[in-house]
Protein backbone atom coordinates (compact mmCIF):
# COMPACT_ATOMS: atom_id res chain seq x y z
CA UNK A 1 0.00 0.00 0.00
CA UNK A 2 1.34 3.36 -0.91
CA UNK A 3 0.02 6.79 0.07
CA UNK A 4 1.35 9.25 -2.44
CA UNK A 5 1.37 13.00 -2.70
CA UNK A 6 0.14 14.23 -6.11
CA UNK A 7 2.86 16.86 -6.22
CA UNK A 8 5.73 14.54 -5.59
CA UNK A 9 6.83 11.89 -8.04
CA UNK A 10 4.49 11.63 -10.97
CA UNK A 11 2.99 8.15 -10.97
CA UNK A 12 0.05 8.77 -13.27
CA UNK A 13 1.77 7.02 -16.16
CA UNK A 14 2.70 4.10 -13.95
CA UNK A 15 -0.74 3.12 -12.70
CA UNK A 16 -3.23 0.66 -14.08
CA UNK A 17 -6.96 1.18 -13.93
CA UNK A 18 -7.29 -0.10 -10.38
CA UNK A 19 -4.62 2.14 -8.97
CA UNK A 20 -1.94 -0.48 -8.88
CA UNK A 21 1.59 0.15 -9.89
CA UNK A 22 2.02 -1.65 -13.22
CA UNK A 23 5.66 -2.38 -12.54
CA UNK A 24 5.01 -3.72 -9.05
CA UNK A 25 1.38 -4.84 -8.94
CA UNK A 26 1.54 -5.56 -5.21
CA UNK A 27 1.77 -1.84 -4.60
CA UNK A 28 -1.54 -0.04 -4.52
CA UNK A 29 -1.54 3.69 -4.77
CA UNK A 30 -3.79 6.23 -3.10
CA UNK A 31 -3.23 9.80 -4.16
CA UNK A 32 -3.40 12.84 -1.91
CA UNK A 33 -3.10 16.51 -2.74
CA UNK A 34 -0.24 16.67 -0.27
CA UNK A 35 1.46 14.11 1.91
CA UNK A 36 0.58 16.33 4.87
CA UNK A 37 -3.02 15.23 4.46
CA UNK A 38 -2.20 11.66 5.38
CA UNK A 39 -3.44 10.91 8.87
CA UNK A 40 -1.55 8.43 11.00
CA UNK A 41 -5.03 6.93 11.44
CA UNK A 42 -5.06 6.15 7.73
CA UNK A 43 -1.79 4.29 8.04
CA UNK A 44 -3.25 2.32 10.91
CA UNK A 45 -6.38 1.67 8.88
CA UNK A 46 -4.27 0.30 6.05
CA UNK A 47 -2.56 -2.14 8.38
CA UNK A 48 -5.88 -3.12 9.89
CA UNK A 49 -7.20 -3.85 6.42
CA UNK A 50 -4.32 -6.19 5.78
CA UNK A 51 -1.52 -4.16 4.30
CA UNK A 52 1.92 -5.54 5.00
CA UNK A 53 3.66 -2.22 4.58
CA UNK A 54 2.93 1.40 3.87
CA UNK A 55 4.98 3.69 1.66
CA UNK A 56 4.46 7.39 2.20
CA UNK A 57 5.64 9.65 -0.56
CA UNK A 58 5.99 13.41 -0.48
CA UNK A 59 8.03 16.10 -2.16
CA UNK A 60 11.72 16.46 -1.44
CA UNK A 61 12.18 17.49 2.15
CA UNK A 62 12.45 21.24 2.25
CA UNK A 63 10.57 21.64 -0.99
CA UNK A 64 6.93 20.85 -0.25
CA UNK A 65 4.69 22.46 -2.85
CA UNK A 66 2.34 23.41 -0.04
CA UNK A 67 5.25 24.49 2.10
CA UNK A 68 5.30 22.04 5.00
CA UNK A 69 3.22 18.95 4.35
CA UNK A 70 6.05 16.48 3.94
CA UNK A 71 7.76 17.75 7.05
CA UNK A 72 4.53 17.44 9.03
CA UNK A 73 3.75 13.87 8.06
CA UNK A 74 7.36 12.92 8.68
CA UNK A 75 7.30 14.40 12.16
CA UNK A 76 3.95 12.80 12.88
CA UNK A 77 5.24 9.38 11.93
CA UNK A 78 8.43 9.88 13.87
CA UNK A 79 6.42 10.87 16.91
CA UNK A 80 7.58 14.47 17.20
CA UNK A 81 4.26 16.03 16.28
CA UNK A 82 0.74 15.11 17.27
CA UNK A 83 -1.23 13.17 16.20
CA UNK A 84 1.22 10.31 16.12
CA UNK A 85 1.15 6.74 14.99
CA UNK A 86 0.07 4.06 17.47
CA UNK A 87 2.93 2.40 19.25
CA UNK A 88 1.67 -0.98 18.16
CA UNK A 89 2.35 -0.23 14.52
CA UNK A 90 5.47 -1.98 13.36
CA UNK A 91 7.76 0.85 12.36
CA UNK A 92 9.70 -1.34 10.01
CA UNK A 93 6.68 -1.51 7.76
CA UNK A 94 6.37 2.21 7.25
CA UNK A 95 8.73 4.06 4.99
CA UNK A 96 8.88 7.65 3.80
CA UNK A 97 10.15 8.49 0.34
CA UNK A 98 10.76 12.12 -0.50
CA UNK A 99 10.86 12.45 -4.26
CA UNK A 100 10.36 15.23 -6.75
CA UNK A 101 8.09 14.93 -9.78
CA UNK A 102 10.50 13.41 -12.30
CA UNK A 103 11.57 10.64 -9.94
CA UNK A 104 8.94 8.00 -10.65
CA UNK A 105 11.56 5.43 -11.56
CA UNK A 106 13.24 5.95 -8.25
CA UNK A 107 9.91 5.32 -6.59
CA UNK A 108 9.51 2.03 -8.40
CA UNK A 109 12.93 0.77 -7.46
CA UNK A 110 12.46 1.79 -3.85
CA UNK A 111 9.02 0.21 -3.81
CA UNK A 112 10.46 -3.08 -5.04
CA UNK A 113 13.12 -3.03 -2.42
CA UNK A 114 10.62 -2.20 0.31
CA UNK A 115 8.32 -4.93 -0.92
CA UNK A 116 11.11 -7.45 -0.55
CA UNK A 117 11.78 -6.30 2.99
CA UNK A 118 8.14 -6.39 3.97
CA UNK A 119 7.59 -9.78 2.43
CA UNK A 120 10.48 -11.03 4.45
CA UNK A 121 8.94 -9.57 7.59
CA UNK A 122 5.84 -11.59 6.88
CA UNK A 123 2.25 -10.70 7.66
CA UNK A 124 1.25 -8.19 10.25
CA UNK A 125 0.38 -9.62 13.62
CA UNK A 126 -3.19 -9.00 14.73
CA UNK A 127 -3.89 -6.08 16.97
CA UNK A 128 -3.58 -7.37 20.53
CA UNK A 129 0.05 -8.36 20.12
CA UNK A 130 1.81 -7.53 23.33
CA UNK A 131 4.80 -5.29 23.11
CA UNK A 132 7.43 -7.89 23.68
CA UNK A 133 10.96 -6.77 24.20
CA UNK A 134 11.84 -7.36 20.60
CA UNK A 135 15.41 -7.30 19.49
CA UNK A 136 15.69 -3.80 18.19
CA UNK A 137 16.96 -3.45 14.72
CA UNK A 138 20.22 -1.65 15.28
CA UNK A 139 20.52 1.90 14.00
CA UNK A 140 21.13 1.50 10.35
CA UNK A 141 24.30 2.13 8.48
CA UNK A 142 23.75 4.92 6.04
CA UNK A 143 24.22 3.43 2.65
CA UNK A 144 21.79 0.56 2.53
CA UNK A 145 18.71 1.85 4.15
CA UNK A 146 15.50 -0.03 3.73
CA UNK A 147 16.48 -3.61 3.83
CA UNK A 148 18.00 -3.04 7.20
CA UNK A 149 15.78 -4.60 9.83
CA UNK A 150 16.18 -8.04 8.39
CA UNK A 151 14.84 -11.22 9.64
CA UNK A 152 14.16 -11.16 13.29
CA UNK A 153 11.01 -12.71 11.99
CA UNK A 154 10.65 -15.82 9.99
CA UNK A 155 9.14 -14.91 6.67
CA UNK A 156 5.69 -16.38 6.98
CA UNK A 157 3.45 -17.07 4.05
CA UNK A 158 0.29 -15.06 3.57
CA UNK A 159 -0.70 -11.60 4.50
CA UNK A 160 -3.99 -11.96 6.27
CA UNK A 161 -4.20 -14.64 8.85
CA UNK A 162 -0.96 -16.00 10.12
CA UNK A 163 -0.12 -15.28 13.72
CA UNK A 164 3.60 -15.02 13.39
CA UNK A 165 4.56 -12.69 16.16
CA UNK A 166 5.31 -9.33 14.78
CA UNK A 167 6.15 -7.60 18.00
CA UNK A 168 5.40 -3.98 18.28
CA UNK A 169 8.51 -2.00 18.51
CA UNK A 170 9.20 -0.28 21.77
CA UNK A 171 9.04 3.43 22.17
CA UNK A 172 12.37 4.95 21.26
CA UNK A 173 12.68 2.90 18.17
CA UNK A 174 10.30 4.70 15.81
CA UNK A 175 12.41 7.77 15.99
CA UNK A 176 15.50 5.93 14.93
CA UNK A 177 14.03 4.04 12.08
CA UNK A 178 12.44 6.28 9.51
CA UNK A 179 14.94 8.97 10.22
CA UNK A 180 17.90 7.04 9.01
CA UNK A 181 15.86 6.14 5.98
CA UNK A 182 15.16 9.70 5.07
CA UNK A 183 18.67 10.75 5.83
CA UNK A 184 20.28 8.71 3.19
CA UNK A 185 17.69 9.89 0.75
CA UNK A 186 19.88 12.27 -1.23
CA UNK A 187 22.70 9.79 -1.42
CA UNK A 188 21.06 7.55 -3.91
CA UNK A 189 19.32 10.34 -5.73
CA UNK A 190 21.36 10.43 -8.86
CA UNK A 191 21.00 7.00 -10.21
CA UNK A 192 17.31 6.47 -10.92
CA UNK A 193 17.47 6.21 -14.71
CA UNK A 194 19.99 3.46 -14.89
CA UNK A 195 18.13 1.44 -12.33
CA UNK A 196 14.78 1.52 -13.93
CA UNK A 197 15.53 0.30 -17.41
CA UNK A 198 17.39 -2.70 -16.18
CA UNK A 199 14.65 -4.16 -14.09
CA UNK A 200 11.79 -5.98 -15.71
CA UNK A 201 8.65 -5.96 -13.71
CA UNK A 202 8.35 -8.38 -10.94
Amino acid sequence: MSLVCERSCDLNAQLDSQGRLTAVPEVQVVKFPCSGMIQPLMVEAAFKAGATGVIITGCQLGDCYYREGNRMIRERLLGGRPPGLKKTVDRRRVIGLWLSRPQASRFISEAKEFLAVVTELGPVAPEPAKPTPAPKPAPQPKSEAKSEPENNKAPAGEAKSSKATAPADPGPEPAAQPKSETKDEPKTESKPEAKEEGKPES
Partner: protein
Amino acid sequence: MYTEPINNLNLKLEAWTNVITTSKYNPFYYHGALPQFYLWVLYLSGLLLFAYYIPTIDNAYSSEKLINAWTSVNYITNTIPFGAVFRGIHRYAGDAMVVTILLHMLRVWITDRYRQYRIVQWLSGVVLLVMVLFIGQTGYYLVWDERSLILTRMTCSALDAIPLVGTGLKTWFLNGTELTNYTLANFLFIHIGLSFALLFGLWIHYVRMTRPVLTPPPVINYILMAAILLVVAWFPIESGKMADLTSQPNTFEVDWFFLFPYAMLTSMQPGIFWLTMLAGVVLLCVVPYFVRTKEVEPAEVVLKNCTGCSLCAKDCPYQAIEMVPAPAESRFKLLATVKPYRCSGCGVCVGACAFDAIDLPNMPDADVTAQIKALLQS
Protein backbone atom coordinates in the same frame (compact mmCIF):
# COMPACT_ATOMS: atom_id res chain seq x y z
CA MET B 1 0.73 24.50 -16.27
CA TYR B 2 2.82 26.15 -18.92
CA THR B 3 5.96 26.15 -16.78
CA GLU B 4 5.81 22.40 -16.22
CA PRO B 5 8.69 21.44 -18.57
CA ILE B 6 11.00 24.07 -17.10
CA ASN B 7 9.97 22.96 -13.67
CA ASN B 8 10.92 19.37 -14.38
CA LEU B 9 14.37 20.52 -15.46
CA ASN B 10 14.57 22.67 -12.38
CA LEU B 11 13.59 19.80 -10.11
CA LYS B 12 16.24 17.59 -11.69
CA LEU B 13 18.81 20.31 -11.10
CA GLU B 14 17.70 20.54 -7.49
CA ALA B 15 17.84 16.79 -7.07
CA TRP B 16 21.44 16.86 -8.25
CA THR B 17 22.16 19.68 -5.86
CA ASN B 18 20.68 17.52 -3.13
CA VAL B 19 23.24 14.85 -3.89
CA ILE B 20 25.96 17.34 -3.07
CA THR B 21 24.42 19.41 -0.34
CA THR B 22 21.65 17.19 1.09
CA SER B 23 18.22 18.73 1.22
CA LYS B 24 18.96 20.48 4.47
CA TYR B 25 21.64 22.67 2.91
CA ASN B 26 20.25 22.98 -0.59
CA PRO B 27 20.33 26.71 -1.40
CA PHE B 28 17.36 26.25 -3.75
CA TYR B 29 15.23 25.52 -0.72
CA TYR B 30 16.19 28.83 0.87
CA HIS B 31 15.60 31.00 -2.18
CA GLY B 32 13.44 33.43 -0.24
CA ALA B 33 15.82 33.66 2.69
CA LEU B 34 18.80 34.66 0.56
CA PRO B 35 17.67 38.24 -0.20
CA GLN B 36 16.56 38.50 3.40
CA PHE B 37 20.08 37.67 4.51
CA TYR B 38 21.55 40.28 2.20
CA LEU B 39 19.09 42.79 3.62
CA TRP B 40 20.56 42.28 7.09
CA VAL B 41 24.05 42.66 5.64
CA LEU B 42 22.97 45.90 3.99
CA TYR B 43 21.49 47.24 7.22
CA LEU B 44 24.64 46.53 9.19
CA SER B 45 27.13 47.80 6.63
CA GLY B 46 24.90 50.81 5.98
CA LEU B 47 24.98 51.63 9.68
CA LEU B 48 28.71 52.25 9.53
CA LEU B 49 28.44 54.29 6.35
CA PHE B 50 25.64 56.32 7.90
CA ALA B 51 27.80 57.16 10.89
CA TYR B 52 30.41 58.95 8.77
CA TYR B 53 28.39 60.16 5.83
CA ILE B 54 27.69 63.90 5.50
CA PRO B 55 24.75 64.68 3.24
CA THR B 56 25.70 68.05 1.81
CA ILE B 57 26.90 69.42 -1.50
CA ASP B 58 29.17 72.05 -0.01
CA ASN B 59 29.96 73.50 3.37
CA ALA B 60 28.94 77.07 2.89
CA TYR B 61 29.50 77.85 6.54
CA SER B 62 32.98 76.46 6.87
CA SER B 63 35.86 77.96 4.98
CA GLU B 64 38.70 75.69 5.94
CA LYS B 65 38.35 72.83 3.56
CA LEU B 66 35.58 71.38 1.52
CA ILE B 67 33.48 68.84 3.41
CA ASN B 68 30.62 67.34 1.50
CA ALA B 69 29.03 64.05 0.56
CA TRP B 70 31.80 63.14 -1.85
CA THR B 71 34.64 63.93 0.55
CA SER B 72 32.90 62.10 3.38
CA VAL B 73 32.56 59.03 1.19
CA ASN B 74 36.19 59.47 0.31
CA TYR B 75 37.02 59.69 4.00
CA ILE B 76 35.11 56.49 4.70
CA THR B 77 36.89 54.73 1.89
CA ASN B 78 40.42 55.85 2.55
CA THR B 79 40.70 56.78 6.21
CA ILE B 80 38.26 54.79 8.26
CA PRO B 81 39.69 51.34 9.04
CA PHE B 82 37.93 48.81 6.83
CA GLY B 83 35.81 51.63 5.46
CA ALA B 84 36.47 50.56 1.90
CA VAL B 85 35.47 47.01 2.77
CA PHE B 86 32.22 48.13 4.32
CA ARG B 87 31.48 50.36 1.38
CA GLY B 88 32.20 47.50 -0.99
CA ILE B 89 30.03 45.15 1.00
CA HIS B 90 27.20 47.66 0.97
CA ARG B 91 27.40 48.10 -2.78
CA TYR B 92 27.77 44.47 -3.78
CA ALA B 93 25.30 43.14 -1.23
CA GLY B 94 22.78 45.44 -2.89
CA ASP B 95 23.57 43.91 -6.27
CA ALA B 96 23.42 40.45 -4.76
CA MET B 97 20.07 41.21 -3.21
CA VAL B 98 18.62 42.11 -6.60
CA VAL B 99 20.04 38.94 -8.12
CA THR B 100 18.67 36.74 -5.36
CA ILE B 101 15.30 38.45 -5.50
CA LEU B 102 15.10 37.78 -9.22
CA LEU B 103 16.07 34.14 -8.69
CA HIS B 104 13.49 33.85 -5.94
CA MET B 105 10.86 35.30 -8.24
CA LEU B 106 11.89 33.02 -11.08
CA ARG B 107 11.69 29.96 -8.87
CA VAL B 108 8.27 30.67 -7.45
CA TRP B 109 7.09 31.29 -10.98
CA ILE B 110 8.62 28.10 -12.38
CA THR B 111 7.39 25.94 -9.55
CA ASP B 112 3.94 27.53 -9.81
CA ARG B 113 3.89 28.87 -6.28
CA TYR B 114 2.69 32.40 -6.79
CA ARG B 115 -1.01 32.25 -7.53
CA GLN B 116 -4.36 31.92 -5.79
CA TYR B 117 -3.81 31.67 -2.04
CA ARG B 118 -0.32 33.06 -2.55
CA ILE B 119 -1.45 36.19 -4.35
CA VAL B 120 -0.67 38.51 -1.45
CA GLN B 121 2.89 37.24 -1.39
CA TRP B 122 3.30 37.77 -5.12
CA LEU B 123 1.84 41.27 -5.20
CA SER B 124 3.74 42.43 -2.13
CA GLY B 125 6.81 40.88 -3.73
CA VAL B 126 6.37 43.03 -6.84
CA VAL B 127 6.06 46.13 -4.66
CA LEU B 128 9.14 45.10 -2.68
CA LEU B 129 11.12 44.58 -5.87
CA VAL B 130 10.26 48.06 -7.12
CA MET B 131 11.14 49.50 -3.73
CA VAL B 132 14.48 47.71 -3.64
CA LEU B 133 15.37 48.95 -7.12
CA PHE B 134 14.50 52.51 -6.19
CA ILE B 135 16.40 52.36 -2.91
CA GLY B 136 19.41 51.09 -4.80
CA GLN B 137 19.22 54.02 -7.19
CA THR B 138 19.10 56.53 -4.37
CA GLY B 139 22.27 54.90 -3.08
CA TYR B 140 23.94 55.95 -6.29
CA TYR B 141 22.89 59.57 -5.78
CA LEU B 142 24.44 59.63 -2.33
CA VAL B 143 28.09 59.19 -3.28
CA TRP B 144 27.84 62.48 -5.14
CA ASP B 145 30.25 61.89 -7.94
CA GLU B 146 29.59 62.91 -11.53
CA ARG B 147 27.37 59.94 -12.10
CA SER B 148 25.19 61.03 -9.18
CA LEU B 149 24.83 64.42 -10.76
CA ILE B 150 23.80 62.96 -14.12
CA LEU B 151 21.35 60.56 -12.49
CA THR B 152 19.82 63.33 -10.42
CA ARG B 153 19.37 65.54 -13.45
CA MET B 154 17.93 62.71 -15.49
CA THR B 155 15.49 61.89 -12.71
CA CYS B 156 14.42 65.52 -12.56
CA SER B 157 13.73 65.77 -16.25
CA ALA B 158 11.94 62.42 -16.24
CA LEU B 159 9.78 63.49 -13.33
CA ASP B 160 9.12 66.81 -15.00
CA ALA B 161 7.67 65.01 -17.97
CA ILE B 162 4.88 63.45 -15.93
CA PRO B 163 1.71 65.44 -16.49
CA LEU B 164 -0.04 67.15 -13.57
CA VAL B 165 1.98 65.78 -10.66
CA GLY B 166 5.40 65.87 -12.30
CA THR B 167 6.56 69.26 -11.09
CA GLY B 168 5.39 68.49 -7.60
CA LEU B 169 7.23 65.19 -7.57
CA LYS B 170 10.36 66.94 -8.75
CA THR B 171 10.14 69.49 -5.94
CA TRP B 172 9.59 66.66 -3.53
CA PHE B 173 12.55 64.76 -4.92
CA LEU B 174 14.94 67.73 -4.85
CA ASN B 175 13.54 69.11 -1.63
CA GLY B 176 13.16 72.47 -3.33
CA THR B 177 13.19 73.71 -6.85
CA GLU B 178 16.86 73.10 -7.46
CA LEU B 179 19.81 71.13 -6.29
CA THR B 180 20.90 72.33 -2.87
CA ASN B 181 22.28 70.95 0.37
CA TYR B 182 18.72 70.02 1.29
CA THR B 183 18.57 67.75 -1.71
CA LEU B 184 21.19 65.36 -0.42
CA ALA B 185 19.61 65.31 3.02
CA ASN B 186 16.41 64.29 1.29
CA PHE B 187 18.18 61.59 -0.70
CA LEU B 188 19.64 60.20 2.48
CA PHE B 189 16.22 60.15 4.06
CA ILE B 190 14.69 58.40 1.07
CA HIS B 191 17.48 55.86 1.01
CA ILE B 192 17.27 54.98 4.68
CA GLY B 193 13.60 55.61 5.28
CA LEU B 194 12.50 53.42 2.40
CA SER B 195 14.93 50.73 3.50
CA PHE B 196 13.11 50.48 6.77
CA ALA B 197 9.79 50.66 4.98
CA LEU B 198 10.95 47.41 3.37
CA LEU B 199 10.44 45.76 6.73
CA PHE B 200 6.78 46.68 6.65
CA GLY B 201 6.51 45.34 3.13
CA LEU B 202 8.23 42.16 4.22
CA TRP B 203 5.81 41.78 7.07
CA ILE B 204 2.98 41.73 4.55
CA HIS B 205 5.07 39.40 2.40
CA TYR B 206 5.35 36.94 5.28
CA VAL B 207 2.19 37.43 7.26
CA ARG B 208 0.14 34.75 5.55
CA MET B 209 2.79 32.14 5.95
CA THR B 210 3.18 30.16 9.12
CA ARG B 211 6.82 29.67 10.04
CA PRO B 212 8.31 31.48 7.04
CA VAL B 213 11.84 30.41 6.20
CA LEU B 214 13.78 33.58 6.94
CA THR B 215 17.23 32.31 7.73
CA PRO B 216 19.28 29.86 5.75
CA PRO B 217 21.55 27.53 7.71
CA PRO B 218 24.69 29.37 8.89
CA VAL B 219 26.83 27.55 6.34
CA ILE B 220 24.89 29.12 3.50
CA ASN B 221 25.18 32.51 5.17
CA TYR B 222 28.95 32.13 5.38
CA ILE B 223 29.14 31.22 1.73
CA LEU B 224 26.98 34.17 0.72
CA MET B 225 29.14 36.48 2.78
CA ALA B 226 32.33 35.00 1.41
CA ALA B 227 31.07 35.53 -2.11
CA ILE B 228 30.52 39.21 -1.36
CA LEU B 229 33.94 39.60 0.23
CA LEU B 230 35.61 37.99 -2.75
CA VAL B 231 33.95 40.43 -5.11
CA VAL B 232 34.88 43.31 -2.81
CA ALA B 233 38.50 42.20 -2.87
CA TRP B 234 38.60 41.73 -6.61
CA PHE B 235 36.69 44.81 -7.67
CA PRO B 236 37.23 47.55 -5.12
CA ILE B 237 34.82 50.46 -5.43
CA GLU B 238 36.17 53.70 -6.81
CA SER B 239 34.31 56.97 -6.74
CA GLY B 240 34.13 59.02 -9.86
CA LYS B 241 35.11 62.65 -9.92
CA MET B 242 33.37 64.88 -7.44
CA ALA B 243 30.18 66.32 -8.83
CA ASP B 244 30.45 69.91 -9.94
CA LEU B 245 27.15 71.68 -10.32
CA THR B 246 28.53 73.94 -13.01
CA SER B 247 29.71 71.07 -15.20
CA GLN B 248 27.64 69.09 -17.67
CA PRO B 249 29.01 65.54 -17.58
CA ASN B 250 27.17 63.30 -19.97
CA THR B 251 28.54 59.78 -19.82
CA PHE B 252 28.24 57.40 -16.93
CA GLU B 253 28.89 53.79 -16.10
CA VAL B 254 25.77 51.69 -15.80
CA ASP B 255 25.29 49.26 -12.94
CA TRP B 256 22.82 47.00 -14.68
CA PHE B 257 21.23 45.76 -11.50
CA PHE B 258 19.99 49.15 -10.44
CA LEU B 259 20.59 51.70 -13.15
CA PHE B 260 18.98 50.02 -16.13
CA PRO B 261 16.08 52.52 -16.03
CA TYR B 262 18.59 55.27 -16.69
CA ALA B 263 20.08 53.33 -19.56
CA MET B 264 16.55 53.15 -20.95
CA LEU B 265 16.02 56.85 -20.34
CA THR B 266 19.02 57.75 -22.46
CA SER B 267 17.41 56.20 -25.48
CA MET B 268 13.71 56.95 -25.10
CA GLN B 269 11.29 59.76 -24.42
CA PRO B 270 10.40 60.20 -20.74
CA GLY B 271 6.76 59.61 -21.52
CA ILE B 272 7.46 56.30 -23.20
CA PHE B 273 9.84 55.42 -20.41
CA TRP B 274 7.22 55.86 -17.73
CA LEU B 275 4.67 53.92 -19.75
CA THR B 276 7.16 51.08 -20.17
CA MET B 277 7.90 50.99 -16.47
CA LEU B 278 4.23 51.09 -15.60
CA ALA B 279 3.47 48.35 -18.11
CA GLY B 280 6.25 46.22 -16.64
CA VAL B 281 4.89 46.50 -13.12
CA VAL B 282 1.31 45.91 -14.21
CA LEU B 283 2.41 42.90 -16.21
CA LEU B 284 4.13 41.43 -13.18
CA CYS B 285 1.01 42.03 -11.13
CA VAL B 286 -1.32 40.29 -13.55
CA VAL B 287 0.91 37.30 -14.33
CA PRO B 288 -0.87 35.22 -11.67
CA TYR B 289 -4.17 35.71 -13.47
CA PHE B 290 -2.95 34.38 -16.83
CA VAL B 291 -3.32 30.82 -15.65
CA ARG B 292 -6.80 29.49 -15.14
CA THR B 293 -6.82 26.40 -13.05
CA LYS B 294 -9.47 24.84 -10.94
CA GLU B 295 -10.53 26.75 -7.91
CA VAL B 296 -9.15 25.74 -4.57
CA GLU B 297 -11.72 23.90 -2.52
CA PRO B 298 -11.09 25.09 0.98
CA ALA B 299 -11.13 22.69 3.89
CA GLU B 300 -14.31 22.51 5.94
CA VAL B 301 -14.65 21.98 9.66
CA VAL B 302 -17.05 19.26 10.78
CA LEU B 303 -18.53 21.27 13.59
CA LYS B 304 -19.86 18.43 15.67
CA ASN B 305 -16.50 16.68 15.78
CA CYS B 306 -14.23 19.60 16.50
CA THR B 307 -12.76 19.50 19.99
CA GLY B 308 -10.95 22.81 19.74
CA CYS B 309 -7.55 21.21 20.18
CA SER B 310 -6.10 23.72 17.67
CA LEU B 311 -3.62 21.25 16.18
CA CYS B 312 -4.86 22.12 12.69
CA ALA B 313 -4.45 25.84 13.33
CA LYS B 314 -0.89 25.26 14.44
CA ASP B 315 -0.02 23.13 11.45
CA CYS B 316 -1.73 25.16 8.73
CA PRO B 317 1.08 26.61 6.61
CA TYR B 318 -1.03 29.56 5.43
CA GLN B 319 -2.58 30.90 8.61
CA ALA B 320 -5.92 29.86 7.20
CA ILE B 321 -7.40 28.37 10.37
CA GLU B 322 -8.44 30.52 13.24
CA MET B 323 -9.58 29.25 16.60
CA VAL B 324 -12.68 31.08 17.76
CA PRO B 325 -14.63 30.72 21.00
CA ALA B 326 -16.99 27.79 20.71
CA PRO B 327 -20.74 28.37 20.89
CA ALA B 328 -22.22 28.35 24.37
CA GLU B 329 -23.77 24.89 24.16
CA SER B 330 -20.49 23.27 23.18
CA ARG B 331 -18.51 21.07 25.52
CA PHE B 332 -15.31 22.67 24.32
CA LYS B 333 -13.80 26.09 24.61
CA LEU B 334 -12.65 26.63 21.07
CA LEU B 335 -13.75 25.88 17.56
CA ALA B 336 -11.69 25.85 14.40
CA THR B 337 -12.79 28.04 11.51
CA VAL B 338 -11.32 28.14 8.02
CA LYS B 339 -10.63 31.36 6.16
CA PRO B 340 -11.43 30.09 2.69
CA TYR B 341 -9.54 32.78 0.78
CA ARG B 342 -6.31 31.76 2.48
CA CYS B 343 -6.80 28.01 2.21
CA SER B 344 -4.70 26.13 -0.31
CA GLY B 345 -6.67 22.91 -0.04
CA CYS B 346 -3.53 20.98 0.80
CA GLY B 347 -5.10 19.00 3.62
CA VAL B 348 -2.38 19.35 6.22
CA CYS B 349 -5.16 20.14 8.66
CA VAL B 350 -6.83 16.82 7.81
CA GLY B 351 -3.61 15.06 8.66
CA ALA B 352 -3.37 17.03 11.89
CA CYS B 353 -6.84 16.11 13.05
CA ALA B 354 -7.29 12.98 15.11
CA PHE B 355 -11.07 13.49 15.36
CA ASP B 356 -12.14 13.55 11.70
CA ALA B 357 -13.27 17.08 12.33
CA ILE B 358 -11.86 18.75 9.24
CA ASP B 359 -12.25 17.64 5.64
CA LEU B 360 -11.43 18.61 2.12
CA PRO B 361 -14.86 18.75 0.49
CA ASN B 362 -13.69 16.81 -2.55
CA MET B 363 -11.91 14.19 -0.49
CA PRO B 364 -13.38 13.49 2.96
CA ASP B 365 -11.09 11.38 5.07
CA ALA B 366 -13.78 8.74 5.55
CA ASP B 367 -13.72 8.22 1.77
CA VAL B 368 -9.96 7.93 1.80
CA THR B 369 -10.02 5.30 4.51
CA ALA B 370 -12.75 3.46 2.64
CA GLN B 371 -10.66 3.62 -0.51
CA ILE B 372 -7.66 2.23 1.31
CA LYS B 373 -9.75 -0.65 2.64
CA ALA B 374 -11.36 -1.35 -0.71
CA LEU B 375 -8.02 -1.42 -2.47
CA LEU B 376 -6.61 -3.83 0.05
CA GLN B 377 -9.58 -6.13 -0.10
CA SER B 378 -9.49 -6.37 -3.88
